[in-house]
């Protein structure tokens, strides 16, 4: 079999099916593009407002002062003051207080209740032995 001649080859491509974009496609693209455009415009408007704020010298000074005061306050809050150091109790006193709290907690456990728990264990063992015998 001979290979296709050049005119046949050309015809193969020339006569091939050509698709056309569907009629509604442009309308969909246009609607979406319009929405995207509006979103971009809103974004740039917000950016422009921000830029205008920083261009105003009075507002810029005011914002700087607020920032500086804020940092100063934060610094004062975080710095450990000498009064607070003096007011804190000595480590020995703290340990004593913790021991006293521990003793109170121990008293909260009822010794009778502990005995009842032990009895319960014995009863279980007896029951197991009885089952084994059966």
């Amino acid at each position, binding site marked *: 079999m001979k290979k*296709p001649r050049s005119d046949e080859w050309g015809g193969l*491509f020339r006569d091939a*099916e*050509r*698709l056309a974009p569907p009629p509604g496609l442009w309308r969909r693209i246009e609607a979406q593009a319009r929405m995207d455009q509006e979103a971009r415009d809103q974004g740039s408007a917000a950016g422009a407002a921000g830029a205008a704020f920083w261009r105003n010298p009075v507002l810029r000074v005011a914002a700087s002062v607020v920032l500086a005061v804020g940092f100063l306050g934060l610094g004062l809050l975080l710095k450990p003051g000498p009064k607070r150091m003096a007011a804190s109790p000595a480590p020995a006193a703290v340990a004593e207080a913790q021991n006293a709290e521990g003793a109170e907690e121990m008293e909260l456990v009822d010794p009778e209740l502990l005995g009842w728990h032990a009895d319960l264990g014995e009863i279980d063992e007896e029951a197991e032995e009885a089952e084994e015998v059966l």
Partner: protein
Amino acid sequence: MVNWFGPERKSIEQLREGRLEGLHWIYRTYSQRILNQCFRILLSREQAEDVLQDLFLKLPTVISEFRGESALGTWLYRVAHNMCLNRLQQAKNRNKLEWENAETLAPRGMGNSVELSDLLAKALAVLDPDTRSLLWLKEGEGVPLKELMEIFGLPEGTLKSKLSRARDRVKDYLEKEAKVEKA
């Protein structure tokens, strides 16, 4: 190069200014050619229309990357070509097992339809998507070799040999088909 005194320049400027008239002109001028290029790469009308829509929605943003060093049509062909190959790659990653036979690359993992309605589509399906795109643009759209070099980023010699091999493969396929029909 862009025709800086024609409607092409005007539409690009309009698009850069955010006016949709520019986008509409480009759509009217190039959408059919791009759709057919995508169809020849993806072998699916549905997928080709999806890529066309994506491209035109991204165009108002990506037009900033167009520097006018090539014709707008050439640049659009290149963008469409890359978008189609990306889509095929994504589908391939999703359905690796279905894509084992890369030689006869029919996009089975891409959805419902592999539209092989005409003989050419069947013949082109024996080529890989990149070569399908090249052969279609050369033979179907008549894109000159110089522009093809820009679209594919390949030197002339490489393009010519790639085209020659592609033609041979398609012709071989057509011969086999003709023999089967006769038998």
